[in-house]
């Protein structure tokens, strides 16, 4: 769902994105091919207990960041986001296997630049209890019309 420059304004709400977290997905993400450590606090209960005191592994914050990337890419177009996108995310509460995460976004700034229009979005993720799990922002530059 790309947008044209004309129909983006401050306050525009992005369509929410819903994701279901599972241990299997966490293992693909944090313990997959090429990883320095396939067994770690994001993939294994005993590692999580040993390293953090958590009883079960919790998802890498970068998974939530990935969800924010998807929401931004749907909004501004994958190609625009892949070449000009940014995400700045703070991880404020662990995401656990079984959690359902909803990503919310709202346009905070639309700025004209020589190379196009930069759209900035306030983004947060919340779990099924309505608790925020990560907060931050994203941006991308749309080419001028």
């Amino acid at each position, binding site marked *: 769902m790309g947008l044209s420059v004309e129909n983006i304004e401050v306050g525009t709400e992005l369509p929410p994105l819903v994701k279901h977290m599972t241990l299997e997905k966490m293992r*693909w993400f944090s313990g*997959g091919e090429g990883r320095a450590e396939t067994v770690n606090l994001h993939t294994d209960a005993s590692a999580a207990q040993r390293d*953090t005191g*958590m009883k079960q592994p919790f998802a*890498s*914050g970068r*998974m939530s960041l990935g*969800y924010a990337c998807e929401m931004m890419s749907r909004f501004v177009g994958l190609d625009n986001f892949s*070449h000009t996108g940014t995400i700045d995310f703070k991880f404020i509460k662990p995401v656990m296997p079984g959690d359902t995460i909803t990503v919310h976004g709202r346009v905070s700034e639309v700025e004209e630049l020589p190379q196009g229009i930069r759209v900035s979005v306030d983004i947060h993720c919340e779990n099924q209890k309505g608790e925020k799990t990560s907060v931050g922002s994203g941006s991308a530059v749309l080419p001028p019309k």
Partner: protein
Amino acid sequence: MIENLSEKERFELIEVGSDEDLGTIVVTQSQIDENRKALDWPEAPFPVLHGTKPDSTKALFPPRVNARSIRQFFNPPIPGKKVTLRMRIVDKYLRDGAPYVVEQTTATDEDGRIIEVMTVHQLLRTKKVGEKWA
């Protein structure tokens, strides 16, 4: 021996401003596919590249927890291309008495295309997570 040092002593060994060559990796299609399955996003273009290489602060603080990530995207990686990872320690700080390090990694492919720049604030006292949330 690093394991005999206190947290404070290990934190003091982190050199802000130091640059580190994390070597090269080759991005594979299966890495990209695995990342897509993990995120439930069939078009996800950017697997996490810097999670594949240990760096010097990981030797001092083996388990770390990501507290904040800033990713800037420039070009999606191309499977089969070599990607060079360079990391710089840009800051370290204490918050609520707990140590953090800020590392910035730049991923550049063999054709000189910047893939992405990743800045990560790592919590080094990882037990803090369980103290707050377990």
